[in-house]
């Protein structure tokens, strides 16, 4: 276990020494300041009622959360996809693995380090952004913490997939595959919503299948639900088919069975990654 922590610490240290953390922090602060300023303009618009400000703020919050979840997913993929592969390519792993450390300890150490980075980034940037929105509009989503937890989980899921690919594929290849799967899952989620609105079983099955195979979009919908005020939910329910295919709407929280599925999926991906790495000739 202590060796897992050693590698995790090394992973975080590398991200910080290579100025990844600094670059992310600066960009994120700039984005948060700009968006907060934008939000603060909402109540100053002409003839606007507080209810309208609240509605607009809630929708814009979901959009901003989508942007952050995208940054997190793409960013963690770009960091995870080369992590094992480039250590093997460059030869760094050749010096480390003959030490008394299991390959699984190296892999899980990398995973833990990256997971901590993803979680900390999601928490810090999310809370800061919501604070900025609250300052400008007095709007706070119903459950920010739960929403951020789902955003972080989405990043961790995609990062784990990229890590699995990186045990066998070149950094570039693994990264591209993970990103393509991420976007396919997003489209799959839209297909699911359309299928449900028009009660088309074939499209529903395709959508459900994509949500099970790549749970990123499923988790994103888990996050959306906790960002929707009750009046938005009520209005959307009344609208019926008109909301079909809106990728920024979730009607209900994720069922427990789906959360259990995601946990099992994650365990399976990590198990597969360990199995694949253990059998690789370096």
């Amino acid at each position, binding site marked *: 276990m202590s060796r897992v922590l050693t590698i995790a610490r090394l992973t975080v240290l590398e991200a910080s020494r290579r100025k990844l953390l600094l670059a992310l922090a600066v960009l994120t602060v700039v984005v948060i300041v700009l968006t907060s300023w934008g939000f603060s303009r909402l109540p100053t618009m002409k003839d606007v009622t507080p209810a309208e400000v609240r509605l607009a703020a809630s929708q814009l919050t979901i959009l901003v959360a989508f942007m952050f979840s995208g940054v997190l997913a793409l960013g963690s993929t770009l960091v995870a996809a080369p992590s094992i592969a480039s250590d093997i390519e460059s030869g760094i792993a050749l010096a480390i693995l003959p*030490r008394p450390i299991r390959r699984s300890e190296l892999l899980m150490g990398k995973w833990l380090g990256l997971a901590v980075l993803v979680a900390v980034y999601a928490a810090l940037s999310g809370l800061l952004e919501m604070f900025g929105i609250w300052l400008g509009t007095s709007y706070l989503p119903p459950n920010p913490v739960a929403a951020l937890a789902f955003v972080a989980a989405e990043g961790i899921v995609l990062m784990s997939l990229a890590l699995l690919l990186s045990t066998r594929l070149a950094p570039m290849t693994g990264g591209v595959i993970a990103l393509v799967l991420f976007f396919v899952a997003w489209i799959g989620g839209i297909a699911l919503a359309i299928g449900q609105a028009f009660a088309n079983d074939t499209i529903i099955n395709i959508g459900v299948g994509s949500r099970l195979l790549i749970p990123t979009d499923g988790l994103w919908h888990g996050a959306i639900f906790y960002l929707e005020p009750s009046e938005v939910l009520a209005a959307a329910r009344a609208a019926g088919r008109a909301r079909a295919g809106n990728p920024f709407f979730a009607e209900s929280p994720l069922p427990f069975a789906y959360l259990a599925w995601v946990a099992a999926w994650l365990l399976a991906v990590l198990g597969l990654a360990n199995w694949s790495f253990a059998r690789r000739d370096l």
Partner: protein
Amino acid sequence: MEAADAASLAVHTQDLAKRYGKTVALSGLTMSVRRAEVFGFLGPNGAGKTTAVKLLVGLALPTAGEGWVLGAPIGDLSTRRHLGYLPELFRYQGWMKAREVLGLHCELSGMARSEWQKEIAIALDLVGLTDRADDKVEGFSKGMQQRLGLGVALLGRPELVLLDEPTSALDPVGRHDVREIIRQLKARGTAVFLNSHLLSEVEQVCDRLAVVDHGRVIATGTMAQILGQDGAVRVRVTGLSPVSRAGLQGYGNLEDEGEWLTFRGLAAERVPDLVGEIVRQGGRVYAVEPRHETLEDRFLQLLKDQQA
């Protein structure tokens, strides 16, 4: 060989084999390295030297056969505490300082934290990097990186050090330093497994060696055993007819270079007979030089025999 016997050896392998797809990298390696001995592993490019070392340190998985390192089956986790390894393609975290890389390896090998500083200082001193210890590795030259790799391999008083072409990037001073380091290691009881195709290097430091080609050991033993007992003699002679030259074949494997004739595999006590015979044939002898066969001659000969 039983595992119990293997415990007294630094390395023992039995029919160890490795295939990459259709490529046979190592086909049945059987050999032993004793403790506190310097063992040279020689062979041309692609012979399987690096593959053999990677199998021993657990970086690659054998397709057949068995091996023991320091008495434990290869890959055993706790034994690795006592191994030092310098890879052929060495690279270390460029964003770290040399001292930090060494610290990381101290930590990974499970060394007590109180010993790190001393161990790191010793390693830095041995490889001559003390004054660059706090520089980032990415700014190191290739030779300095190889020195760092050597320092990493020497951390924590290992019982077996495996060096895969440790001098490939070093200047003549560095090569000399490496030979000195290897001698010191041997003196303190560390076994050294040295992969190389620099024959002079192997000749100078190794107690025993194995010559590999196409994944098989084609000769093994001490330097004297590999070189053979019978020496060679070079004679500078004029005035011999081609027929008489040919007639001298019986004295040994004759190599005719004009004035110089080299007889290989000639026992020392027959040299006077040879000279007498040349004189009898009308030859005028200017010089007779015993010639020690070099490892290079022997190496090339072994590879040639192999192809025949």
